[in-house]
């Protein structure tokens, strides 16, 4: 089975959230069958900072579904969007 790397953008609930705490929660939210590669900060506007999370999942049923669900459930996260998806060679 091949592997897919997904880049998922997390929008914060507000500019005031604790970004480091959110990152820790992201680390704990990755399901067992997925692998966290890295988390980057992307400043948006008016103090809002998004997180870009790169995760590796199998090219298989379910896709990024479980990862998306877990990340959406983080309290400080308002919504998420998969902005890039590609196979690893």
């Amino acid at each position, binding site marked *: 089975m*091949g592997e*897919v*790397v*997904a880049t998922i953008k997390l*929008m914060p609930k*507000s*500019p005031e959230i604790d970004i480091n705490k959110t990152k820790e929660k992201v680390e704990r939210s990755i399901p067992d069958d997925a*692998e966290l*590669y890295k988390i980057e900060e*992307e*400043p*948006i*506007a*008016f*103090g*809002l900072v*998004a997180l870009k999370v*790169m995760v*590796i999942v199998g*090219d*298989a*049923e*379910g*896709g*990024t*579904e479980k990862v998306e669900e877990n990340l959406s459930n983080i309290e400080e996260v*308002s*919504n998420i*969007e*998969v*902005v*890039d*998806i*590609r*196979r*690893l*060679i």
Partner: protein
Amino acid sequence: MAKEKEHMNLAFIGHVDHGKSTLVGHLLLQSGIIAEQQLAKGEDKFRFVMDKLQEERERGVTIDLAHARFDTPKYEFTIVDCPGHRDFVKNMITGASQADAAVLVVAADDGVMPQTKEHVFLARTLGIGQLIISINKLDLVKYDEEKFNQLKEDVSALIKTVGYDPSKIDFIPMSAFVGDNITKASENTPWYKGPVFTQSLDKLSAPEKPTDLPLRVPVQDVYSITGVGTVPVGRVETGIMKRGDEVIFEPPGVGGEVKSIEMHHEMLEMAEPGDNIGFNVRGVGKNDIRRGDVAGHTDTPPTVAKEFTAQIVVLQHPGAITVGYTPVFHCHTAQVACTFMELQKKMDPATGEVKEENPDFLKTGDAAVVKLKPTKPMVIERIKDIPHMGRFAIRDMAQTVAAGMCIDLVPAK
């Protein structure tokens, strides 16, 4: 300073095992992206590199390679090797990294297969206007010209059905494994007089920045920020937004003057396609707008559809889709349940022939033209008018049931 080359995203699609990764690997090797110094003399270079990649434990290397860029004389390309599983289709439709062209890989020993058809439909649905066809694994059919011509005909018939013009598309006989016709003409195919793969890449047209289209900014989220007020956040899909412009949000129909725009925490005078911005509009409150609404200029407002006609392809449905079915449509940032009002035609994905007028049901693998009615107001545009706003994924039972594009609509006002 040398003029910067224009950049393109190139998607690799095709049936499982037809050789997409092998072609990507060989292309990167021949363009020098995969370093050659690790290779011993006389070794089967390609096999060596592929083996090495496969056992590569260093994540960074494989991830960088998946985002690697390579140059042809005219362009700089980033390759996107597309996931094979259908569950990723939703991400590819709503995601940001739109491919500018696709390479369809078809193995000569296997021919047109189900995923070949599906990917062709998806490429069209994703708005990819340019294709290159790699007829691969020609080594397995003794580089037979007849075989190549036969497949060229089969694939031409297939792509014609979704509106590609085969006479404008390059079909290249290749062996991704041996490396034929990737960067130089192969002695194995003396009968082939067309361009090699990298020449074909240079014949592609550069993507147009959709700045000439009407402004569309689908709202991703809405914030209330102290000292600023209400701040909708989203990616500019088309058009240009300038400070001072009069904008309107649809479906709610509220609007006003753009007071400020920021990106990367910096003030902008104007924002263009691809920019992820937060902006502030005079008179628009936090409760007036929400995710899924779309901002546009007041004189070219986003279209709210009362009904729309779509071409869809059913990717996976456990039963049958009939009139009355109301799954959730994911279109830009909106998620709206829409009801199937009419099943107008069912087409054979392999030939494009209308198989049935007014079919009773649709099932997995069918392509069809259908009429839909959103259960609440929704912004969608004709694919011809604003391609970025006309495609959608249909989701039900946590699966992507179908993908499609809006080909016509009845505006709500």
